């Protein structure tokens, strides 16, 4: 069936169409007349300004927050770097002080300092037993001016020689030499004290020198 034919075809055929009830109050009304167009004032819409302001404020707030966050983070970073540097400095300082303390504690330096303060080593000690109320041993007072004999050289840690300040402007180790002129010459034990004695091999922490063989009969 062509389109044209379909248009001309009646939608009902014969009397098979159902009779629809017609509303009572609505008889075949006459054709509605169109409302005449007229110019009216538009209804006042909602004001949009607060929303926009809100958006801007929110954005500004967000930006500000980000900025503050950024600033605080970078400030904290600077602080971190600074604190780390400070910790490193304190660490080094601590190491330095520890070393100084160790140097003061070295037995040689302690003995030298004690001697400088006029202390002398005690010789014979006595014991008191409280349980049996007995005294053993004859404690004799130490004699001042005893020749202290050999002194071990103080540790030669670089920059750590100021434990017993030198009286003279000479060698810092000078004051460790025996005081009395009658005392025996500085011992080979204190090579640092004997500045005149030049060691045959200066290794200064270096490697061990090649072995030297003795010629027989020497």
């Amino acid at each position, binding site marked *: 069936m062509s389109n044209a034919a379909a248009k001309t075809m009646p939608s009902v055929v014969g009397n098979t169409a159902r009779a629809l009830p017609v509303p009572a109050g609505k008889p075949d009304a006459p054709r509605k007349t169109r409302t005449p167009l007229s110019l009216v004032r538009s209804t006042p819409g909602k004001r949009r300004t607060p929303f926009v302001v809100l958006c801007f404020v929110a954005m500004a707030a967000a930006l500000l927050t980000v900025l503050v966050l950024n600033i605080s983070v970078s400030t904290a970073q600077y602080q971190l770097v600074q604190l780390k540097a400070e910790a490193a400095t304190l660490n080094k300082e601590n190491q330095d002080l520890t070393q100084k303390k160790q140097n003061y504690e070295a037995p040689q330096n302690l003995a030298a300092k004690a001697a400088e303060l006029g202390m002398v080593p005690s010789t014979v000690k006595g014991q008191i037993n409280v349980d049996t109320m007995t005294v053993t041993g004859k404690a004799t007072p130490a004699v001042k001016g005893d020749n202290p004999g050999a002194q071990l050289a103080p540790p030669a840690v670089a920059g750590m020689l100021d434990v017993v300040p030198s009286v003279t402007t000479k060698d810092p180790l000078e004051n460790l030499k025996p005081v009395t002129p009658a005392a025996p010459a500085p011992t080979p034990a204190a090579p640092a004290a004997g500045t005149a004695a030049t060691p045959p091999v200066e290794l200064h*922490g270096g490697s061990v020198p090649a072995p030297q063989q003795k010629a027989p009969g020497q």
Partner: protein
Amino acid sequence: MAQNPGTSKKPKTPAARKRLRVGLGIMLTLLLVVGGKLFMVQGLDVGGMAEAALASRLTPQVLPAERGKIVDANGTVLASSVIRYNIVVDQVQNTNTASFKRYNEKTEELDVVTRDQGIAELAGLLGADESKVREALTGDKKYAVVAKDVKPELEDRISKLLIPGIVAEGVSKRVYPNGSVAGGVIGFLQDGTTGQAGIEQTQDDVLRGTEGKRVFEIGADGLRIPVATDELTPAVDGSDVKLTLNTDIQYFAQQAIQNQVDKLSAEWGVIIVMDTKTGNLIALADTNAPDPNDPGKVDAKDRGVRSVTAAYEPGSVEKMITAAAVIEEGKSNPLDHFTIPPSYTIDGQTFTDAFEHGTEERTLAGILGWSMNTGTVMAGSRLTKEQRYDWLKKFGVGEQTDIGLPAEATGILAKPEQWDDRQQYTVLFGQGVSQSTLQTVRAYQSIANNGVMLQPRLIDSYIAPDGEEHKVPAKDPRQVVSKETAEQVQDILESAVTEGQIKDAAIDGYRVGAKTGTSQAPREDGLPGFDGYTASMVGMAPMEDPRFIVEVVLQRPKGSIYGITNGPVFCSVMAQVLRTYNVPPSTGTPARLPQFVK
């Protein structure tokens, strides 16, 4: 219909169309070439450009491991590592910069500093001559060292000078705060890294730790690329080594032996202090001990630990072993009766004593108390050659000590079948056999500890970087003689002090047992014969339950050997040890075994 010129609808002339097509073709070809190259470069990486770029960006950085400390039994630091700086200069940069700007904190302005002024300031801080510093900074080297081992505080001040070309390099430096106290035991490093002597050498692997590594990418601007590779292998610091030594006793002993050696112009001397209950070595004192901070100051031969490296003929101290052997074998007892002629001949070998005497009626205790060779040979000849050898061996003669020091001596104990006619008897009083001082002390330790020999210990524990302490287990003890024999020998040694010849070993308030030894020292220059003496004294206290052993050895003292005594040295060291460890004064009655048979 109106014509609209310029619109596409206008049919083109064939020539223009052709041109367009050719142009398009060229464009496409170029695109293909560029695309292909892109693929080659990015996709296939022909020529290894990306790899090379990565390699140039990747920067490995070694994270140094801190070397462990060496501490004594009380935690006193004997060796530790500290940060020091080397001040280095790029001479080219420094020489070419006539002046530089520096921020002045006081005026809050940039000061212009001339090169001369900078050099003057640097010289002032370094305490060096200005002309020398100028010399060091001038030249055309990109790297030159201006000052070494500068302390952190000074480095800080030098860095603040901002002198162009001056840089500080951090280096690790080993320091030995106690210097020559136990210097030989601790040893020293070569080039600041590798142990070259003593504990530093033998425990190098433990002390050294493992170096760490960090690999990261760095941009052309010298900044690390944040999102790129960053591999970190942390460094493992070295463990600390804790020794059994006591620094104070060690110092005292070193002073004492140094004094003694100086007084008698001896070649060298050693003192060993040992705890008899644990075998712990409390002091290993040497004369002329090196200061590890500067070991080159003493002779090479003085840089070791002679207590363990020097083996020599021990002399009369060996008579204790003979006495213990004959008692343990049931061949004699401390009060056994010996009739001793002025000289004693056995198997054609004649033996005499250090002092002249007629025929004497002696006890075994008297033989040791007066250190008689004749009597010792008489008593010892009751043992077979094999037994003599076995007993020396049981007491650790010829058995190496293993305390963790380099070159520990084993000594020489020849097999009995190799002994000649005389040597078979001389070994009874410590000639013809050689041992280190520590081996002698170990033999006496087994007597002091009621017959149980403990191996000497020097390394007490290893302390890991996390602070955990790993004890070095003691080696298995062994019963050398029975408790009864050990007690009888202890009484003999005590009687030598109370009744015998070693009265100067007595300490007020404490019961002491001791034995002296004097032996001829063989020449060391290759010629046969002897050229001096070795004088020693070994003793223990308090005798009711011996806790400490001290041995003093003096090699080749000058002057008459008969006038030499190590008694005062022994006493002062032993008294110091007893007092340091708060040993209460002795109880009970001192043993006084009769030296003569009446």
